[in-house]
């Protein structure tokens, strides 16, 4: 009974599918097993029969002639040494003597060589086992590499998705920044506009009409800038003041009990005067403007008659 393992070795050996080491090892086993030898012969014949599987092809007659000529040439070369051999009849004896000497030397080394061969066989078997193990490890490494590759592909996909998302968020941030800058600019513009409007609102233009019977046509225009706390008064057809008298301007502000002193001015014979004034007290809300006729240099509180007044 031949084991499956030996049958496998025999099949591989018959096919020529064993490497040099495997074949040498199997041949040692083969020498001591006649059943195995018979199996190898049968398997070899089976392998040989596989040549019949090829489609028939006929070699040319020229090839036959070439082969036979080549063999004839080989035969002639083989014949020449034979003739020499007949001439030199002593040569075989000399060769035999040499062979005996060589055999003696070989016998001496035989045991040592045998030991070396056994050791080499063991080392070769160990190397074969190591190779199988290395192949297994290589297969595992390949699997691990494939898994790692797959993970790398997945991670790359995730990275690309995150990169795209980051770009999107950055784009949104940029848009938001631009929008915020635009809104800030709008706000500043509106604030400027509001300030301008407020500034304009602090400027008051008033007309002061005559309260004089003898000069009903007299009037004055006044522009008051609340922010700058200063104003300009221009008179028309207002009677000229006497040498001991001055016109005095008063500004009504609810903050104060009495009108605030706006200063004194005089009018020439043509009835015109332009007077720039800047009250000493701060005016919060100018509700009315008045001009009275006072003694020269003015007074702290109106005493004389009102000659001009705003509505």
């Amino acid at each position, binding site marked *: 009974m031949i084991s499956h393992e030996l049958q496998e070795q025999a099949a591989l050996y018959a*096919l020529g599918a064993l490497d040099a080491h495997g074949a040498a090892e199997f041949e040692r086993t083969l020498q001591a097993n006649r059943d195995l030898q018979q199996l190898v012969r049968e398997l070899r014949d089976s392998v*040989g029969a596989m040549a019949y599987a090829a489609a028939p092809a006929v070699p040319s007659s020229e090839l036959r002639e070439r082969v036979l000529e080549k063999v004839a040439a080989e035969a002639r070369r083989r014949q020449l040494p034979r003739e020499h051999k007949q001439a030199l009849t002593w040569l075989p004896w000399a060769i035999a003597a040499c062979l005996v000497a060589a055999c003696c030397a070989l016998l001496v080394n035989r045991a040592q060589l045998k030991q070396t061969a056994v050791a080499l066989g063991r080392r070769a078997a160990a190397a074969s086992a190591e190779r199988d193990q290395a192949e297994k490890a290589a297969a595992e490494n390949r699997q691990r590499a494939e898994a790692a590759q797959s993970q790398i592909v997945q991670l790359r996909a995730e990275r690309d998705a995150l990169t795209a998302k980051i770009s999107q968020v950055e784009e949104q941030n940029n848009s938001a920044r631009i929008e915020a800058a635009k809104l800030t600019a709008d706000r500043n513009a509106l604030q400027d506009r509001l300030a301008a409007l407020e500034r304009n609102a602090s400027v008051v233009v008033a007309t002061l009409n005559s309260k004089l019977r003898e000069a009903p046509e007299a009037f004055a225009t006044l522009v008051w800038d609340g922010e700058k706390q200063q104003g300009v008064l221009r008179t028309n057809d207002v009677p000229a003041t006497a040498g001991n008298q001055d016109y005095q301007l008063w500004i009504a502000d609810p903050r104060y009990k009495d009108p605030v002193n706006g200063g004194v001015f005089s009018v020439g014979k043509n009835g015109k005067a332009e007077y720039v004034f800047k009250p000493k007290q701060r005016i919060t809300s100018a509700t009315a403007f008045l001009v009275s006729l006072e003694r020269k240099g003015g007074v702290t509180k109106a005493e004389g008659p009102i000659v001009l007044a705003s509505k």
Partner: protein
Amino acid sequence: MPNYQESQQATDHALIARVARGDETAFAALYDRLSGPLYSFAVKILGNTTDADDALQEACVQIWRRAASYDADKSSVFSWAVLITRSKVIDHLRAKGRKQKLVDDILESSEAVGVSTASATESASDIVGRSDEALKVQAILAQLPAEQRQAIELAFFADLTHHDVAQKLGEPLGTIKARIRRGLLKVRDALHRSPTV
């Protein structure tokens, strides 16, 4: 073993014994008996007659030189000659760098060797002229499971070791060994049952 086969092998043995003694006439007779299937085998693997001519010539010279070392206990004369021819053919394949292509052809082919040689590309005269032995072997190979046939073909026709076969087919080494063993034993059993091979 059938008598027909025994008588054929006896003739081959007698001839190779005479060749071993330098008998050129016996060699010519042996050439006439073996050259057909050996040449067909070489053409199949090499794919052209020019290289097959060279391989067969080198194989025949080798048979002439090594006839004395032929051992009838190890194989038939025909199987011995096939193995010599295969060795020369593989040398040519390697020299031409075509071994890989042969491996690829075997891997890609879903056909058995026997089936592929019975393709429509053969002429009617080829089929008629084919020997009974060839037809029997083709039938036997065609009946093998594809995976066993493929493993055997890669080892035999493409000269791959069982390690190489396992790597090419991506199968464990033990699986390949088992396939080759089972396949080759089936071929052996079928040949022994066959009356003409």
